């Protein structure tokens, strides 16, 4: 499996969180996702973590570490890329 591109992550965000008023291309790579920006919340974070773990066979840590990973699409993409190369 290839490491995901930022576009792949954006598509997962829009699909999994049922964002009806947002298109994947509307999301900026470095924009904040939680609180401000897309205004996602902790329940969205849990859903997104589950979806990413399932799609890329990785493990996303909980708590403060997850907060860093979920800062932006770029951060998520980078974390998954590292996890997949580390695992492979």
């Amino acid at each position: 499996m290839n490491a995901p591109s930022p576009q792949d992550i954006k598509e997962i965000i829009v699909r999994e969180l049922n964002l009806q008023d947002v298109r994947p291309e509307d999301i900026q790579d470095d924009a904040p996702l939680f609180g401000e920006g897309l205004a996602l919340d902790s329940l969205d974070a849990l859903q997104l973590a589950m979806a990413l773990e399932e799609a890329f066979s990785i493990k996303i840590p909980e708590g403060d570490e997850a907060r860093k990973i979920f800062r932006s699409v770029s951060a998520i993409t980078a974390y998954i890329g590292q996890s997949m190369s580390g695992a492979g």
Partner: protein
Amino acid sequence: MRIWITGVGIVSPLGVGARATMRLLCEGQRAFDEVTLFSVEGQRTRIAAEVRDPRFARSDGTAGWSRTGAMALAAAREAIEESGLRSGVDEIDLVVGGTTGPMLETEGFLPNLADGEPLAVDVARMISHPLSMTTDYVRTAVGAMRNVRTISSACSTGANAILLGALWIASGRSKSVLVGAADALCRLTYTGFNALGSLDPAACRPFDRTRAGLSLGEGAAFLVIERDDVAAARGATPIAELAGWSAAAEAHHITNPEPDGSTAARVIKAALQVAGLSGSDLDYVNAHGTATQLNDAMELRALRSVLGNEMDRIAISSSKGQLGHSLGAAGAVEAAVCVLAIAQGVVPPTGGLTDPDAGCEGNHVMGTGRGMPVRAALTNSFGFGGLDSALAFCRPGFAPEKPAPSRRPARLASGAIISAAGQAGLLIAKRHAEPGPSPAEGRIELDPTVSLDPHKSRRLGRAERMLCLAVDSAIVGFENQGALDRANAGLVAGMASGSLDGVSRFLKKARDKGARFAPPADFPNLMLSAAAGHASIYHSLGGPVLSATDAGTSMMSAVWTAIDLVESSMADFVLAAGAAEATEAQFAATRAADPAGVHPLTEGASCVLIAPDASGSGARLLWRTQWHCQADQRTALAELPPPVDGARVVTAGDCTLAGTAWSGVDAVPIELRAGTYEGVDGAALVTAASLVMDGRCPVALAIACLGDRGCALLLGAP
């Protein structure tokens, strides 16, 4: 008037019996152990607090049996026996709460629905699925009951069942009410709380610095509550008094509590106010205390904001550190603990608590129980969707006496409907009484010009969307919107079975991919009370919010409950709303409930706004009746006032008015234009209301007869 508690019954993981449970609680015993009821492979914990008594081990094949039902019945019988009430002699009403009901028995086959094999589903077990089965089981076994209601509001269900019974007594509708709740453990809630990351891998530790989430439990508790003069007249003595009650919605988030605890504080304050008590009268608080980070800090903040420095004196504990969180049952179990604490002069500890966290400071009872006089006690319950409740109990005679039972009249002030015949307010509703095309089976077309905020509604399923749209139309159609204070307006959702499809998909994914891939955001929506919670959040409704669930007449029961809330001045405006979505699972449930049904299976939603009768237009409620088995139908309709000239009837289901003065009146079956779905009883009611409000007739009778149940409301022009 006072409300006496004359009987208490508990089935808990520590023991069967109220006194046995209380003794073991005060000894400091904890009931957590490896789960034996189902596989917990792949979950973050392996433990829960199970009821291990062999009487509740598994189904003996009796129709309607479930662990939940069996535990409910044992607790209900214990309470009734202690009270000395005689079924068939004394007038007894019944309110039962739950969130899981027979889920443990039905969840085994529910993933099959998501496999696309609806026909493989066992119809008999499908009929056993609704939460109201628990109520039916208790009603049938304990004996004749007059008014019967099943309610759900997630983890405040038990408290709200008691609250509703109190309203019935305070409004003069009831003399003696058996009130309580029961919930058995099941894969669905275990997997769901696991997905939310809410389960502590070890036994939970409420308020502790090291707390890491909740531990699940199960059980049942019932109280007999009675008007003091009625109880005294038959020689009963009070164990304690139910003095205060309150419920309100945070309208904040479906799973996360409002961080500042302001609604919880509002509810605590209001319960004390109803009781006529102040913080200096309270000696004990049985906290909700789930042991999640967010709940415990919020709850202590709310308590301290109301009780101030009294918090350093008032003993506090959470029973969940010993019994686990029994979800819908918890509020009833913890109310029963308060009653026994007052009666016995001892308060139980918080199991697992050794080092109270910063922000959770209080006069914590730790280790074993504390013997102390308890003049008055308070218990909190907070449910998903921000559905908060508080109850206050005291020694008999300690709180000021309440005024004699009274109620104010209520009216249907506005309504809305979404059906195959159209979508919007009352103008559309009238169409159901006029000739027109019959609907096609399946989904209806929703008006694309009326939509919800896309971000706020992203977690809503189709049924919840329709429900929110119907609520919106009912509010918009109300003539006096300036008077409608949303922060205090309530909502009662009428839901027969919750999201069967959602449950099926969730369980299938957990089964096929493993527990850790069960979708967390889907879980809260699988509670029957989710639609009410979502709608209160979407529309910022901050009054009492709960769901009524009564199989085919759930929407009628929701309207009744909304009327109960307005009559007893719990809220000035209460919306009652119901919705059902056309899906294979929903159709399977509808067919199971009505195998002989000939009408096209569709979907729809309806909503009515109940307001005090003081002024304004709408339809006045002239008379109402409800029955829960067909044998009672004739008796229930015996007192139906005769029709006047021009009266109309709107029916849902297979209704007969033969033998009443209404037998010759033209009746319009709602299904001709709307088809049939769970909640079509609401469409019949809104149509009848619309005919009256529009001046088409002086009185209209809405009557629903679905399965064994029935309900009739007679409406008149103001």
